[in-house]
């Protein structure tokens, strides 16, 4: 978006007709957003951008351009937060071209410079689109993380016995989260038994088995025992045929079995009332 000193005429023209351009631009943007944004808010936003656009057209220094990028980025993020789609935001920027064109149409000597000006405004509009996309992608990433957190609860089965029922695939990111939550729960509760239930884990291959092993080892480093429960018959078959050895780690078919086992190891027994 370079406008060198050979394009001073259109910069002067726009500055001289500042109020008209700003008002017309404001009208066009208001027409598009309707009542979703107040007139004062629009005027305030556009005035700031307009000022920077004019400055960056006449100055050779980078600061106005840098500020302009920052302000447009912020505009884009704020519109994204308020549910506007990126086309609406970009069109808002593009309509500055229309506002200027309406005045320039009667001045044929500005035609050449207008084209460069229009190109500059195009770049600014696209910038808002790029910022919008980056902002939405961040929201998606944050939501994915939130979902990961939600799907990894730690429950207290009994005094001194905690469990994590896993639902879904176990990759290294999930394993790390599981370890963090289990270990923090061990510190908070002083529990000496943990159960990792994999009933909801669809496949157990060598990689998943290694993740499970890591989790068990981490629990042991904090002085607790860890049992793996929820070994379905199909999974047992896969584990055996892959040659995975769980060594001295206790494994049970169901969470109930694991609870009974942990209770036994705690010196407790369940009997009739």
């Amino acid at each position: 978006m370079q406008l060198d000193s050979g394009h001073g005429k259109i910069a002067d023209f726009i500055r001289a007709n500042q109020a008209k351009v700003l008002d017309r631009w404001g009208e066009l943007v208001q027409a598009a957003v309707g009542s979703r944004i107040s007139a004062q808010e629009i005027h305030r936003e556009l005035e700031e951008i307009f000022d920077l656009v004019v400055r960056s057209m006449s100055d050779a220094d980078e600061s106005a351009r840098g500020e302009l990028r920052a302000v447009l980025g912020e505009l884009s993020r704020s519109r994204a937060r308020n549910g506007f789609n990126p086309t609406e935001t970009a069109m808002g920027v593009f309509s500055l071209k229309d506002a200027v064109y309406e005045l320039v149409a009667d001045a044929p000597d500005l035609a050449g410079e207008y084209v460069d000006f229009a190109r500059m405004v195009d770049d600014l509009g696209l910038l808002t689109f790029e910022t919008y996309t980056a902002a939405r992608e961040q929201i998606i990433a944050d939501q994915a993380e939130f979902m990961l957190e939600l799907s990894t609860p730690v429950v207290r089965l009994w005094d001194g016995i905690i469990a994590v029922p896993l639902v879904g695939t176990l990759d290294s990111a999930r394993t790390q989260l599981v370890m963090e939550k289990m270990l923090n729960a061990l510190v908070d509760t002083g529990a000496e038994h943990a159960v990792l239930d994999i009933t909801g884990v669809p496949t157990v291959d060598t990689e998943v088995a290694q993740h499970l092993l890591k989790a068990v080892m981490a629990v042991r480093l904090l002085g607790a025992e860890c049992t793996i429960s929820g070994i379905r018959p199909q999974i047992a078959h896969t584990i055996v045929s892959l040659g995975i050895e769980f060594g001295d780690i206790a494994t049970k078919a169901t969470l109930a079995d694991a609870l009974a086992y942990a209770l036994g190891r705690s010196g407790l027994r369940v009997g009739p009332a």
Partner: protein
Amino acid sequence: MERVPILRIGKTLLVTIQIDLQDDIVMQLQEDLAEQIVATSATGVIIDITAVEIVDSFIGRMLSAVGSMSRLFDAETVIVGMRPAVAITLVELGLSLPGVRTAINAEKGLRLLNGRT
């Protein structure tokens, strides 16, 4: 040179590691522990690493070495208070600290040691 103090609670020696250990202090601690185990006929050693933020393979080997050494004198070592971040890093490093038992804190560690008599 700073030395890590060794406290005595009955037949158990308690070592609380508070600082970022430099190598020579680590070596000195191993020596001091060996001496003290023999001198006091201790049957248990508790190493409290609640305040330790980093356990690399050198420190990890030291902890395992203390475990092996104490067993030579028929004493058992319990590492207590390992931080979750440290445990996660150790398993990623592949260090399982064989030969030492663990507990969540010194109180449970003591109970573990006394339970065996």
